[in-house]
């Protein structure tokens, strides 16, 4: 709070000086954004690539972006990625599934130091599974910073574990300024889970880089090929594959399967292959690197997704971008992702999925499937990271105009919103957090913390120093006028 007056966010003129037109508001105002999540490179997945791509596009739009995550093995300290994207790998202990342990306190000194020296104005946390993201939200509110949270996953309401995590999410989000979900279904889910006002929840889908996923019909084999790329786990419906593969292989002699991905359910697929003697027709590729996914996808005609739950499903967009006919289960946000002429939706059962696949096969045989190039050209207009960044920027602008709840209001909100018991416990923790912060400010006042050199943003050293950066700056201009 103290340093905000000291020129924290006075980059760029205040929007009030300009005639009130949305365009000027969006292009003139820049923010100092800190993305926080436990999940980042070298870990690989949807959240990781979302953070990376979004940060790159925000940098392109002139914002200062830094990323905070925990140390991955030897990868610790500060690293710079493309375009001067600064990443802090913090020495926090990993507890489970690459998520750090949370005590709500131990990360405050480190995070405060970073927030102060980087002059951060907006904290953007990602993924409800990340303890660090929630910690950062908690500290940021104590420090009076604006907060944004992106939820990437769906959760049920039935079992004990989801009841507990939903309660924690309610606590974490009740005083967060804005929440971003990746699909409308995800928004409904998050609003219900955290008992939120739907007005402060925006839907901004994920995106796919269409230049990474281009079709290549010459790589296809003569016979029909169904491609599956997913982690081989229960939630991705790998069990359903064990029914689909033998059924379809018996019916179509010229049908092949290519399966990319690794996981505990791989053994089932191996058993099926053994049992039905399908070694030459079912290829199990094992774990794939993200850059290899395209080369696997283009070998097939049909893409099959058997997920049992999915907030957005990037895999089907990637497959459609490569020109494949997509067959998928109708779960979660999947029906929102692709228009009906590009996807065949089925119920999550062997029978329904086989019917969907047979429909796709008959279309393929009769030649009524659209050409891969044509599908690619349609899909590439749907989801782009530039669009995501533009929409996220609007959220930042809105949040920057809002006030952060002062301590007394925040306590009131916690107690009124999160139930009598949980509310009081977390209100108490918030008070402790505040006292701890006051202590830290007394130990090391904000004024003696060094200010970091901006790598990105309006005064970014990276863009001023390197010719490459300047070139990208030129790109930036063109993208703005577009």
């Amino acid at each position: 709070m103290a340093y905000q007056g000291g020129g924290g966010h006075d980059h760029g003129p205040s929007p009030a000086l300009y005639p009130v037109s949305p365009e000027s508001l969006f292009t003139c105002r820049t923010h100092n954004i800190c993305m926080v999540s436990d999940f980042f490179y070298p870990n690989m997945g949807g959240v990781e690539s979302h953070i990376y791509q979004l940060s790159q596009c925000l940098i392109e739009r002139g914002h200062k972006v830094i990323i905070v995550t925990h140390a991955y093995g030897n990868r610790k300290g500060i690293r710079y990625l493309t375009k001067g994207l600064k990443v802090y790998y913090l020495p926090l202990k990993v507890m489970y599934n690459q998520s750090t342990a949370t005590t709500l306190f131990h990360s405050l000194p480190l995070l405060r130091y970073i927030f102060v020296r980087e002059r951060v104005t907006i904290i953007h946390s990602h993924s409800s599974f990340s303890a660090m993201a929630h910690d950062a939200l908690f500290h940021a509110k104590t420090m009076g910073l604006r907060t944004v949270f992106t939820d990437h996953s769906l959760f049920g309401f039935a079992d004990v574990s989801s009841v507990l995590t939903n309660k924690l999410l309610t606590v974490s989000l009740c005083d967060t300024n804005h929440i971003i979900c990746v699909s409308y279904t995800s928004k409904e889910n998050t609003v219900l889970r955290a008992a939120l006002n739907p007005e402060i929840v925006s839907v901004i889908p994920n995106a796919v880089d269409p230049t990474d996923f281009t079709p290549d019909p010459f790589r296809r084999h003569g016979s029909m090929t169904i491609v599956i790329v997913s982690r081989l786990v229960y939630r991705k419906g790998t069990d359903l594959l064990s029914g689909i593969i033998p059924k379809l292989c018996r019916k179509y002699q010229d049908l092949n399967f290519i399966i990319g991905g690794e996981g505990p359910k791989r053994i089932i697929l191996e058993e099926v292959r053994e049992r039905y003697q399908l070694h030459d027709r079912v290829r199990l590729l094992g774990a794939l690197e993200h850059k290899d996914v395209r080369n696997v996808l283009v070998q097939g005609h049909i893409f099959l997704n058997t997920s049992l739950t999915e907030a957005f499903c990037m895999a089907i967009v990637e497959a459609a971008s490569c020109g494949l006919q997509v067959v998928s289960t109708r779960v979660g946000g999947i029906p929102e992702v692709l228009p009906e002429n590009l996807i065949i939706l089925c119920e999550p059962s062997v029978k329904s999925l086989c019917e969907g696949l047979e429909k796709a096969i008959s279309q393929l045989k009769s030649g009524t499937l659209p050409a891969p190039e044509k599908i690619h050209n349609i899909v590439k207009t749907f989801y782009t990271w530039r669009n995501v960044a533009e929409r996220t920027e609007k959220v930042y602008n809105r949040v920057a105009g809002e006030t952060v709840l002062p301590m007394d209001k925040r306590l009131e909100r916690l107690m009124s919103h999160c139930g009598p018991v949980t509310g009081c416990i977390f209100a108490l923790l918030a008070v402790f957090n505040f006292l701890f912060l006051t202590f830290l400010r007394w130990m090391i006042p904000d004024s003696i913390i060094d200010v970091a050199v901006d790598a990105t943003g309006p005064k970014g050293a990276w863009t001023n120093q390197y010719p490459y950066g300047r070139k990208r700056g030129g790109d930036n201009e063109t993208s703005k006028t577009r």
Partner: protein
Amino acid sequence: MCAQPVTDTPETRWQKVLYERQPFPDNYVDQRFLEELRKNIHARKYQYWAVVFESSVVIQQLCSVCVFGVIWWYMDQGLLAPHWLFGTGLALSLIGYVLFDLLDGGEGRRKSGRTRWADLKSALVFITFTYGFSPVLKTLTESVSTDTIYAMSVFMLLGHLIFFDYGANAAIVSSALSLNMAIFASVCLASRLPRSLHAFIMVTFAIQMFALWPMLQKKLKACTPRSYVGVTLLFACSALGGLLSISVVGATLFALLLVSISCLCPFYLIRLQLLKENIHGPWDEAEIKEDLSRFLS
């Protein structure tokens, strides 16, 4: 957020799709928001008396433990001759054995393909071994203090009640563990009886009580629910009577426990059912309803 004014004409109807750029702000909330929300679709409507009937399984098991305790006390005090208990137990077991086949007309036996000879063999093997080892049982726990034995038995019997298969499909249910805990408790208690014959008969009785009796009960409940209710009442009364002859306070407390389980708990279950708010929607994880193991066998 800054966006064009929203007009709700048919041309600009909001769609629940992500691939189209719509003239609405990202945080727009349509009337159709949460329209697919369903509540309590799997919630069951309970009938009071049906729940009371189902609770009799718990009553039966509580009574089994109670009867077992009472019989052990009588044996320990020397008020009950082991021969008498053995005779009664044997007679009741034979009646139960005949009933077990009569109830479903021998269908269960045909399905399992188990012969009477096999039954007789296992009964003989069991009795011989228990009889042979009963002197060992007698001296097994001599070095352990009696208080420890009592405490252990209580915990084991509680465990038996917790893990018993009352028909609920839960992870905690394990009939094998439950039976083992009961037998362990009986071995502990039997080792404190005066002679090895007592110990042998106590363990045999435990087997009848905790292994054979629940099997017969299950069949009774499935085939003749009416007589099952009668048997439960009779069994509960005899357990109460037995306890009453030892301790009035104990019997009163036990009676209260039985009444609360069979009458109050069902009442609260039905009352609380009204407060149930189970939310379902498109975000729920889909369930695989088919049996997929057939593809692998």
